[in-house]
Protein backbone atom coordinates (compact mmCIF):
# COMPACT_ATOMS: atom_id res chain seq x y z
CA UNK A 1 0.00 0.00 0.00
CA UNK A 2 1.46 3.35 -0.94
CA UNK A 3 1.63 6.30 1.41
CA UNK A 4 -0.41 8.66 -0.75
CA UNK A 5 -4.03 7.75 -0.27
CA UNK A 6 -5.45 10.75 -2.09
CA UNK A 7 -6.29 8.65 -5.13
CA UNK A 8 -8.82 6.50 -3.28
CA UNK A 9 -12.45 7.57 -3.74
CA UNK A 10 -15.26 6.13 -1.63
CA UNK A 11 -18.99 6.29 -2.44
CA UNK A 12 -22.22 5.24 -0.81
CA UNK A 13 -24.37 3.52 -3.45
CA UNK A 14 -27.38 1.29 -3.97
CA UNK A 15 -25.49 -1.41 -5.91
CA UNK A 16 -27.23 -4.18 -3.98
CA UNK A 17 -27.65 -7.08 -6.40
CA UNK A 18 -25.21 -9.26 -8.30
CA UNK A 19 -26.83 -8.04 -11.52
CA UNK A 20 -26.28 -4.41 -10.55
CA UNK A 21 -22.70 -5.16 -9.59
CA UNK A 22 -22.10 -6.64 -13.03
CA UNK A 23 -23.61 -3.54 -14.65
CA UNK A 24 -21.26 -1.32 -12.66
CA UNK A 25 -18.34 -3.55 -13.60
CA UNK A 26 -19.16 -3.14 -17.28
CA UNK A 27 -19.49 0.59 -16.72
CA UNK A 28 -16.15 1.07 -14.98
CA UNK A 29 -13.98 -1.66 -16.49
CA UNK A 30 -11.26 -0.37 -18.79
CA UNK A 31 -12.32 3.19 -17.98
CA UNK A 32 -9.46 5.57 -18.56
CA UNK A 33 -8.04 7.15 -15.44
CA UNK A 34 -9.35 4.39 -13.18
CA UNK A 35 -6.93 1.79 -11.81
CA UNK A 36 -9.19 -0.48 -9.75
CA UNK A 37 -12.56 -0.61 -8.05
CA UNK A 38 -14.67 -2.84 -5.87
CA UNK A 39 -18.13 -2.83 -4.35
CA UNK A 40 -18.60 -4.05 -0.78
CA UNK A 41 -22.07 -5.57 -0.92
CA UNK A 42 -21.71 -6.91 2.62
CA UNK A 43 -21.93 -3.34 3.85
CA UNK A 44 -25.28 -1.62 4.24
CA UNK A 45 -23.98 1.37 2.26
CA UNK A 46 -22.88 -0.88 -0.66
CA UNK A 47 -19.64 1.08 -0.69
CA UNK A 48 -17.97 1.59 -4.05
CA UNK A 49 -14.22 2.05 -3.67
CA UNK A 50 -12.30 3.43 -6.60
CA UNK A 51 -8.54 3.66 -6.99
CA UNK A 52 -8.20 6.58 -9.35
CA UNK A 53 -5.33 7.64 -11.56
CA UNK A 54 -6.90 10.73 -13.05
CA UNK A 55 -10.66 10.17 -12.82
CA UNK A 56 -12.40 12.51 -10.37
CA UNK A 57 -15.10 11.81 -7.79
CA UNK A 58 -17.49 13.97 -9.78
CA UNK A 59 -16.89 11.93 -12.94
CA UNK A 60 -17.50 8.61 -11.14
CA UNK A 61 -20.65 10.02 -9.56
CA UNK A 62 -21.98 11.22 -12.92
CA UNK A 63 -21.23 7.87 -14.58
CA UNK A 64 -23.14 5.96 -11.90
CA UNK A 65 -26.03 8.39 -11.68
CA UNK A 66 -26.51 8.46 -15.44
CA UNK A 67 -26.77 4.68 -15.32
CA UNK A 68 -29.54 5.04 -12.75
CA UNK A 69 -27.63 4.33 -9.54
CA UNK A 70 -27.55 6.36 -6.38
CA UNK A 71 -24.01 7.49 -5.70
CA UNK A 72 -22.79 9.91 -3.04
CA UNK A 73 -19.18 10.49 -2.15
CA UNK A 74 -18.28 9.60 1.43
CA UNK A 75 -15.75 11.74 3.20
Amino acid sequence: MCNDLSHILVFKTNIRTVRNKKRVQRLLENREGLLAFNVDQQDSDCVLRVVAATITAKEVKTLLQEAGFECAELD
Partner: protein
Amino acid sequence: MRGRDLNKERLVRDTAIQMLVEQGLQGFSMNKLAGACNISVATLYIYYKDKDDLIRKLGDDVGSRHMDALLSGFSPEMRFREGIRKQWENRSQFYLKYPLEAMCAEIIRHSPYGECMDKKKLRVFKDAMSAFVQNAIDRGELKPMPVEAFWSIVYGPLYTLLRFHSQGSSLGGRKFVFTKELMLQTLEMVLDALSPSVSKK
Protein backbone atom coordinates in the same frame (compact mmCIF):
# COMPACT_ATOMS: atom_id res chain seq x y z
CA MET B 1 -2.79 15.04 -0.30
CA ARG B 2 -4.21 12.43 2.05
CA GLY B 3 -1.44 10.66 3.97
CA ARG B 4 -1.39 7.60 6.16
CA ASP B 5 -2.28 8.15 9.79
CA LEU B 6 -0.50 5.38 11.67
CA ASN B 7 -2.33 6.16 14.92
CA LYS B 8 -5.65 5.81 13.16
CA GLU B 9 -4.58 2.55 11.54
CA ARG B 10 -3.53 1.22 14.94
CA LEU B 11 -6.88 2.28 16.43
CA VAL B 12 -8.75 0.52 13.61
CA ARG B 13 -6.67 -2.65 14.03
CA ASP B 14 -7.10 -2.82 17.81
CA THR B 15 -10.81 -2.02 17.69
CA ALA B 16 -11.39 -4.60 14.94
CA ILE B 17 -9.67 -7.27 17.06
CA GLN B 18 -11.83 -6.39 20.05
CA MET B 19 -15.03 -6.44 17.97
CA LEU B 20 -14.18 -9.78 16.38
CA VAL B 21 -13.53 -11.36 19.78
CA GLU B 22 -16.64 -9.88 21.41
CA GLN B 23 -19.11 -10.18 18.54
CA GLY B 24 -17.62 -12.83 16.26
CA LEU B 25 -17.34 -12.72 12.49
CA GLN B 26 -21.10 -12.64 11.98
CA GLY B 27 -21.58 -9.49 14.03
CA PHE B 28 -18.69 -7.65 12.40
CA SER B 29 -19.26 -4.87 9.86
CA MET B 30 -17.31 -1.94 8.46
CA ASN B 31 -20.03 0.45 9.57
CA LYS B 32 -19.95 -0.80 13.15
CA LEU B 33 -16.16 -0.66 13.16
CA ALA B 34 -16.11 2.91 11.86
CA GLY B 35 -18.63 3.88 14.54
CA ALA B 36 -16.62 2.20 17.29
CA CYS B 37 -13.45 4.00 16.13
CA ASN B 38 -15.32 7.28 15.79
CA ILE B 39 -14.08 7.68 12.23
CA SER B 40 -15.97 7.90 8.95
CA VAL B 41 -16.69 4.78 6.95
CA ALA B 42 -14.83 6.41 4.08
CA THR B 43 -11.64 6.52 6.14
CA LEU B 44 -11.92 2.80 6.76
CA TYR B 45 -12.28 2.10 3.04
CA ILE B 46 -9.19 4.14 2.34
CA TYR B 47 -7.12 1.58 4.24
CA TYR B 48 -9.07 -1.57 3.35
CA LYS B 49 -10.89 -2.65 0.20
CA ASP B 50 -13.76 -4.23 2.10
CA LYS B 51 -14.62 -6.35 5.14
CA ASP B 52 -12.94 -9.44 3.68
CA ASP B 53 -9.75 -7.50 2.96
CA LEU B 54 -9.68 -6.14 6.51
CA ILE B 55 -10.19 -9.54 8.14
CA ARG B 56 -7.60 -11.18 5.88
CA LYS B 57 -4.99 -8.52 6.68
CA LEU B 58 -5.82 -8.74 10.37
CA GLY B 59 -5.53 -12.52 10.28
CA ASP B 60 -2.21 -12.30 8.52
CA ASP B 61 -0.83 -9.81 11.03
CA VAL B 62 -2.19 -11.40 14.21
CA GLY B 63 -1.54 -14.96 13.02
CA SER B 64 2.05 -14.11 12.15
CA ARG B 65 2.76 -12.63 15.55
CA HIS B 66 1.09 -15.58 17.23
CA MET B 67 3.13 -18.17 15.34
CA ASP B 68 6.38 -16.27 15.92
CA ALA B 69 5.61 -16.25 19.64
CA LEU B 70 4.83 -19.99 19.69
CA LEU B 71 8.12 -20.90 18.01
CA SER B 72 10.27 -18.60 20.14
CA GLY B 73 12.99 -20.68 21.82
CA PHE B 74 11.38 -23.89 20.56
CA SER B 75 13.16 -26.56 18.53
CA PRO B 76 11.83 -29.81 17.02
CA GLU B 77 14.94 -31.50 18.45
CA MET B 78 13.87 -30.85 22.04
CA ARG B 79 12.99 -33.77 24.28
CA PHE B 80 9.22 -34.20 24.44
CA ARG B 81 8.73 -32.95 28.01
CA GLU B 82 11.00 -29.97 27.47
CA GLY B 83 9.35 -29.02 24.14
CA ILE B 84 5.81 -29.22 25.44
CA ARG B 85 6.78 -27.17 28.47
CA LYS B 86 8.20 -24.52 26.11
CA GLN B 87 4.94 -24.58 24.11
CA TRP B 88 2.88 -24.12 27.27
CA GLU B 89 5.11 -21.24 28.36
CA ASN B 90 4.97 -19.55 24.94
CA ARG B 91 1.24 -20.03 24.55
CA SER B 92 0.38 -18.83 28.05
CA GLN B 93 2.71 -15.83 27.81
CA PHE B 94 1.20 -14.71 24.51
CA TYR B 95 -2.34 -15.30 25.77
CA LEU B 96 -1.76 -13.40 29.01
CA LYS B 97 0.06 -10.52 27.31
CA TYR B 98 -2.23 -10.22 24.27
CA PRO B 99 -5.48 -11.99 25.22
CA LEU B 100 -7.57 -10.37 22.51
CA GLU B 101 -5.00 -11.04 19.78
CA ALA B 102 -4.67 -14.67 20.85
CA MET B 103 -8.46 -15.15 20.77
CA CYS B 104 -8.75 -13.26 17.49
CA ALA B 105 -6.03 -15.43 15.89
CA GLU B 106 -7.98 -18.53 16.91
CA ILE B 107 -11.29 -17.15 15.58
CA ILE B 108 -9.78 -16.28 12.20
CA ARG B 109 -7.71 -19.47 11.93
CA HIS B 110 -10.81 -21.64 12.37
CA SER B 111 -12.92 -19.60 9.93
CA PRO B 112 -12.95 -19.50 6.11
CA TYR B 113 -10.48 -16.60 6.41
CA GLY B 114 -7.95 -18.99 7.99
CA GLU B 115 -6.70 -19.97 4.55
CA CYS B 116 -5.30 -16.52 3.96
CA MET B 117 -3.12 -16.41 7.04
CA ASP B 118 0.59 -16.27 6.31
CA LYS B 119 1.03 -19.63 4.57
CA LYS B 120 4.82 -19.60 4.79
CA LYS B 121 4.80 -19.08 8.54
CA LEU B 122 2.00 -21.56 9.00
CA ARG B 123 4.02 -24.14 7.05
CA VAL B 124 7.14 -23.47 9.15
CA PHE B 125 5.06 -23.85 12.30
CA LYS B 126 3.34 -27.04 11.16
CA ASP B 127 6.63 -28.57 9.99
CA ALA B 128 8.33 -27.78 13.29
CA MET B 129 5.48 -29.30 15.32
CA SER B 130 5.22 -32.39 13.09
CA ALA B 131 8.97 -33.00 13.30
CA PHE B 132 8.86 -32.53 17.07
CA VAL B 133 6.05 -35.07 17.50
CA GLN B 134 7.71 -37.57 15.13
CA ASN B 135 11.01 -37.28 17.01
CA ALA B 136 9.17 -37.92 20.28
CA ILE B 137 7.49 -41.02 18.82
CA ASP B 138 10.80 -42.28 17.39
CA ARG B 139 12.48 -41.87 20.78
CA GLY B 140 9.65 -43.75 22.51
CA GLU B 141 8.59 -40.64 24.46
CA LEU B 142 5.10 -40.55 22.97
CA LYS B 143 2.59 -43.06 21.64
CA PRO B 144 1.35 -42.43 18.08
CA MET B 145 -2.21 -41.05 18.13
CA PRO B 146 -4.56 -39.01 15.92
CA VAL B 147 -3.54 -35.36 15.77
CA GLU B 148 -6.89 -34.21 17.18
CA ALA B 149 -6.46 -36.48 20.21
CA PHE B 150 -2.89 -35.22 20.67
CA TRP B 151 -3.92 -31.55 20.49
CA SER B 152 -6.89 -32.00 22.84
CA ILE B 153 -4.82 -33.76 25.48
CA VAL B 154 -1.71 -31.58 25.19
CA TYR B 155 -3.27 -28.13 24.91
CA GLY B 156 -6.89 -28.55 26.03
CA PRO B 157 -6.06 -28.27 29.75
CA LEU B 158 -3.87 -25.19 29.21
CA TYR B 159 -6.54 -23.32 27.25
CA THR B 160 -9.18 -24.27 29.82
CA LEU B 161 -7.06 -22.68 32.57
CA LEU B 162 -6.43 -19.60 30.41
CA ARG B 163 -10.14 -19.28 29.68
CA PHE B 164 -10.92 -19.47 33.41
CA HIS B 165 -8.33 -16.75 33.90
CA SER B 166 -9.81 -14.45 31.28
CA GLN B 167 -13.26 -14.99 32.81
CA GLY B 168 -11.79 -14.33 36.26
CA SER B 169 -13.64 -17.35 37.58
CA SER B 170 -13.68 -21.13 37.21
CA LEU B 171 -16.29 -23.74 38.08
CA GLY B 172 -19.35 -22.45 39.92
CA GLY B 173 -18.06 -18.88 39.74
CA ARG B 174 -15.03 -19.55 41.95
CA LYS B 175 -12.49 -16.74 41.70
CA PHE B 176 -9.58 -17.84 39.54
CA VAL B 177 -6.15 -16.47 38.66
CA PHE B 178 -3.74 -18.33 36.36
CA THR B 179 -0.35 -18.95 37.98
CA LYS B 180 2.86 -20.51 36.69
CA GLU B 181 2.79 -22.94 39.61
CA LEU B 182 -0.65 -24.25 38.67
CA MET B 183 0.36 -24.38 35.01
CA LEU B 184 3.41 -26.55 35.80
CA GLN B 185 1.37 -28.79 38.10
CA THR B 186 -1.21 -29.35 35.35
CA LEU B 187 1.50 -29.81 32.74
CA GLU B 188 3.12 -32.59 34.79
CA MET B 189 -0.18 -34.49 34.84
CA VAL B 190 -0.60 -34.07 31.09
CA LEU B 191 2.95 -35.27 30.41
CA ASP B 192 2.55 -38.25 32.75
CA ALA B 193 -0.70 -39.20 30.99
CA LEU B 194 1.05 -39.13 27.63
CA SER B 195 4.15 -41.02 28.72
CA PRO B 196 4.19 -44.59 27.25
CA SER B 197 5.95 -45.95 30.37
CA VAL B 198 3.19 -44.69 32.68
CA SER B 199 0.39 -45.99 30.48
CA LYS B 200 1.88 -49.50 30.56
CA LYS B 201 1.56 -49.67 34.38
